[in-house]
């Protein structure tokens, strides 16, 4: 009897052991269309042709990065198949390509597609299909809306986040300043302005004048004169490159020397500050979240060393001065991180769940200290930036990394 009982106990123990070993493995190996034991299919839509084809560098870098991951053995033994289509930056074409990716190529998710209206065109479709639309490459703040669109997530800091950071900086550095805002009268400018006001909160009365301009205006000189007359001593220029340069020139011409902040969009040395004049651009402020691929200060940086090595080996034709290359590298790295976190459960649902559980992730090409954090109610991965000041011929970072979260 005892022997039998012992046997039973042994068997049940063995069984328990077996289930303990095998069941998690069985339970974990779950696939939705687009994933298998050997492969993960990732869809992507890029403007390889058309007016925005300069952004195609992002897609090419992402493809090269996935090639590198595959050459190193893939993700948990699975190779990434990156299917990237051209939409020419035209929303109806984006819809066609997204449907092709989801219904014909059966991808696990769509990653890093570019543009505000192009992604806007497929957001509803992706959410109806419950296929993840991850790390949208657009600065609009509408991608952070998990309650209404639980299958769509942004990546880069939104315009509103960036504006909130300027608000924080001004409240600290110039608490009794009078702010004059020049903004572009479109979704970009309005997103920004709203962020600025949110950031200032109760102190929104610091803004003495907000002046909008339309992109159809040939010059914005009058607006700058008006802002000077308002008595503002902080000038926030929410402008695209051409107008940012005009504003810098005009301010110098009328001898107005406020604390001058320009948006990250226009923080290009070659495209804005040089044409406006390097001398009069000294001391201008802006903010950034990526390392500058052409800045020698990063030569000894571990992350950038990896980045340069990657470029040499997998993407030798890429132009490291192109901000899109640095951007694509970091975005692809975030994607790989999420897929690694998914383990053997490669379902649409788990991909979204893991994407919303990123904790202090630091891609190689983001500024030191900038960490990607997401949560079930926070679909805005990057929310920190660092202030920078233009000095000599380049930007100098200063101060701490600032978070754009309100009330911190």
């Amino acid at each position, binding site marked *: 009897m005892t022997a039998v009982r012992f046997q039973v106990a042994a068997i049940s123990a063995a069984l328990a052991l077996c289930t303990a070993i095998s069941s998690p493995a069985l339970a974990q190996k779950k696939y939705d269309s687009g994933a298998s034991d050997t492969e993960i299919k990732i869809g992507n839509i890029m403007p*390889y*042709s*058309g007016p925005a084809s300069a952004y195609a560098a992002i897609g090419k870098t992402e493809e090269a990065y996935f090639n590198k991951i595959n050459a190193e053995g893939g993700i948990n033994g699975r190779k990434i198949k990156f299917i*990237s*289509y*051209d939409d*020419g*930056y*035209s*929303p*109806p074409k984006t*819809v*066609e390509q997204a*449907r*092709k990716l*989801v*219904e*014909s190529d059966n991808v696990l998710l769509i990653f890093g597609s570019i543009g*505000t*209206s*192009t992604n*806007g*065109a*497929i*957001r*509803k*479709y992706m959410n109806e299909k419950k296929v993840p639309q991850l790390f949208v490459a657009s600065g*609009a703040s*509408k991608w952070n809306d998990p309650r209404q669109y639980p299958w769509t997530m942004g990546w880069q800091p939104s315009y509103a986040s960036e504006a909130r950071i300027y608000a924080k900086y001004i409240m600290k550095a110039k608490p009794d300043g009078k702010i004059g805002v020049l903004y572009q*009268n*479109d*979704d970009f400018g309005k997103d920004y302005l709203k962020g600025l006001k949110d950031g200032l909160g109760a102190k929104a009365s610091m803004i003495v004048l907000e002046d909008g301009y339309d992109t*159809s205006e040939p010059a914005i000189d009058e607006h700058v004169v008006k802002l000077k007359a308002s008595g503002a001593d902080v000038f926030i220029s929410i402008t695209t490159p051409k107008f940012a340069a005009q504003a810098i020139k005009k301010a110098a011409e009328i001898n107005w020397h406020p604390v001058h902040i320009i948006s990250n969009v226009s923080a290009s040395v070659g495209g804005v500050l040089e044409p406006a004049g390097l001398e009069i651009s000294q001391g201008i402020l802006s903010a950034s979240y990526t390392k500058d691929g052409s800045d020698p200060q990063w030569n000894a940086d571990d992350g950038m060393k990896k980045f340069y090595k990657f470029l040499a080996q997998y993407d030798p034709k890429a132009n490291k001065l192109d901000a899109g290359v640095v951007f694509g590298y970091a975005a692809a790295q975030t994607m790989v991180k999420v897929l690694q976190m998914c383990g053997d459960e490669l379902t649409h649902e788990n991909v979204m769940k893991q994407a919303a559980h990123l904790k202090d992730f630091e891609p190689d090409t983001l500024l030191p200290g900038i960490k990607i954090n997401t949560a079930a109610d926070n679909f805005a991965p990057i929310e920190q930036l660092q202030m920078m000041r233009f000095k000599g011929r380049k930007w100098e970072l200063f101060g701490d990394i600032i978070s754009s979260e309100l009330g911190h």
Partner: protein
Amino acid sequence: MSAAEDVVTEAPAVEAVPKRAMTLGTGTSLVVLAALLIAPVFVKNFIIFQMTMLLIYGLAVLALNILTGGSGQFSLGQSAFYAVGAYTTAVLMEHFNINYALTLPIAGVVCFGFGFLFGQPALRLSGVYLALATFALATAMPQLLKLNFLEHWTGGVQGLVVTKPDAPFGLPMSQDMWLYYFTLVVVIAIYIFSVNLLRSRSGRAFMAIRDNEIAASAMGVDVALYKTLAFGVSAAITGIAGSLGAIAVQFVAPDSYTITLAISLFLGMVVGGVGWLPGSIIGAAFIIFVPNMAEGISKGLSGAVFGVLLFLVIYLVPHGARQVAILGQQLAGKLRKN
């Protein structure tokens, strides 16, 4: 004036197409119709969506074909009418909760008015000058849609999301399939209307103006009226195509209706054969599928590959699909004799 006229009259684009050669024979029409009816049953929803877009672009090319092939006027501004139709539908559906089917005639009427008005300057311009004037319309349209005081309705740069209709009466078919058949019915109705229009008194007046304006007016054709009328009809059909496009794509934004669209439609017309109405659908297939093919051949050089393909088509069959169809017919005739 006369130099420009010469250029235009020499171009094959306004070559006189006899009105009977503008359509297909009854037998062929029925075969094509049957194919269009049955095909969706066997394919995936994505392909059905592509077929719907094919019909919609086909309709827009047909509209241009009536204008250019019928009345001999050029337009590079069709994207503007397409946009007005699309926005009319989107705004009516999303802000006023009007049934999608009812928005089509409204869009048609709005675009007819718009096209008729725009047809006024067309009276004074001809050939390349008219093409330029309409070109200006096409480039202006995306910016007009972004205007501030319209933003409340149009959604500005962000655009508007349109809800896709379900099949009515509980029919057991997907949204895509329902929309396909709905589009097919609209397209066939407009096709029949267009064929009859071109065979009617008005159609003959259009063609008389195309072939020789002075002779037409000498025969008593009210040139001014018929020219603007052609613009109006063409705009109305393009607008309806735009409405259908907005419903199928479920989204409208200014970026969707740039000059590229207008040029694509123009391209579709030339490839399909100017003045040959059935060619519209072939032209539409060219502008939808050939860029995809070109992308498949080379991603970085897709534009160049597309250019080469287009060049080959124009070089080998300058009259487009119509020429291929005629060759086919002659070949069939020979075989029958043997």
